[in-house]
């Protein structure tokens, strides 16, 4: 033990003033370098410098994409002798053997402002299903009464999908109020007997834009 103590004391004595200065400078530079990493935590938009030469505007819109894989109708086929089969997310399966699906998409307005809601699909009925006279429709219903006030469509009615621009304005006013802020989107497919085999997929986009 005594020898060990002696060695460590001897080591510290072995550093000459030049080396001690280097050690001091090393630590100083290390501390300054680490300080320079500038660790910051923040809540909302924060201006770090005093001179505001960068102007940031957060667009008051959001797109949420739903892939149809989320609603998985699974495997199925059209009954023999039938022209087509109809399946929807309300649990209906006509002239086919697909499994029943009883829920579509649900969207809530979580914010603190009313928004206008648009819906578009990436593919039209032919692109999505193929075959002769396919159909690909959606229906909007209020999960909570008064959530969606439409202008261009009627609630609880089927409409063909729209692939252009932002799609169809489905809620002119989509309320944010506590018990009035949730809508359902259901889907219906009419699958022709000559539709292509294999898996079919599409993406729906719901766009919310703040009402000024």
């Amino acid at each position, binding site marked *: 033990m005594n020898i060990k103590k002696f060695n460590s004391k001897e080591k510290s004595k072995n550093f000459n003033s030049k*080396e001690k200065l280097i050690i001091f400078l090393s630590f100083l530079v290390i501390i300054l370098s680490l300080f320079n990493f500038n660790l910051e935590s923040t809540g909302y938009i924060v201006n770090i410098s005093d001179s505001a030469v960068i102007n*940031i505007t957060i667009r008051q819109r959001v797109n949420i994409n739903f892939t149809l894989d989320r609603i998985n109708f699974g495997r199925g086929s059209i009954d023999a002798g039938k022209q087509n089969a109809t399946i929807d997310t309300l649990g209906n399966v006509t002239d086919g053997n697909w499994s029943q699906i009883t829920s579509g998409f649900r969207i809530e307005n979580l914010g603190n402002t009313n928004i206008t809601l648009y819906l578009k699909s990436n593919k039209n009925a032919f692109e999505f299903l193929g075959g002769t006279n396919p159909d690909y429709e959606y229906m909007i219903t209020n999960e909570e009464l008064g959530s969606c006030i439409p202008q261009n469509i009627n609630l609880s009615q089927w409409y063909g999908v729209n692939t252009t621009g932002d799609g169809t304005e489905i809620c002119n006013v989509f309320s944010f109020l506590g018990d009035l802020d949730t809508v359902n989107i259901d889907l219906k497919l009419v699958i022709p007997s000559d539709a292509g085999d294999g898996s079919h997929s599409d993406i729906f986009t719901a766009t919310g834009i703040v009402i000024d």
Partner: protein
Amino acid sequence: MGKIKVKSEKKKTEKLGLVLIFLLIFFSILFLFLLISNLLILDKKQIFTNVIVSNYSGFDLNSTALKFGFVERGQSAQRSVIIKNDFDKKAKIIIKIKGNISDFLIVSENNFFLEKNQSKEIDFSILLPEDLMFGEYNGVISIILKKS
């Protein structure tokens, strides 16, 4: 024996001295690099961002934070930010994302130049993996304007 011990101690001290000199040079360069890069920063803004992984979707439109609301696993969402260079010269924009949201938050463009008074809309996309745990994921987006 005693002489050999003293010699080896001397060698060790010399080695330690060399390591310290190396460290001093390394950290001095690092320090200078950080100092210069900080001096080039003209402005920096930070935006809070978050997404809640849920079993249904929800919008949360907010003008002060980039909130994506409720997004289902395997689904995606986009929001955008308009960046304008109010500096009197061309400048470089660098976007950095920190926090647990950074693994699945993608920025459409980064490290680009903006002319004086030029603005650009930049998209931020969330793409949630199928196996992501339900819950809230937060982060901070830093938008840095640097001298070009």
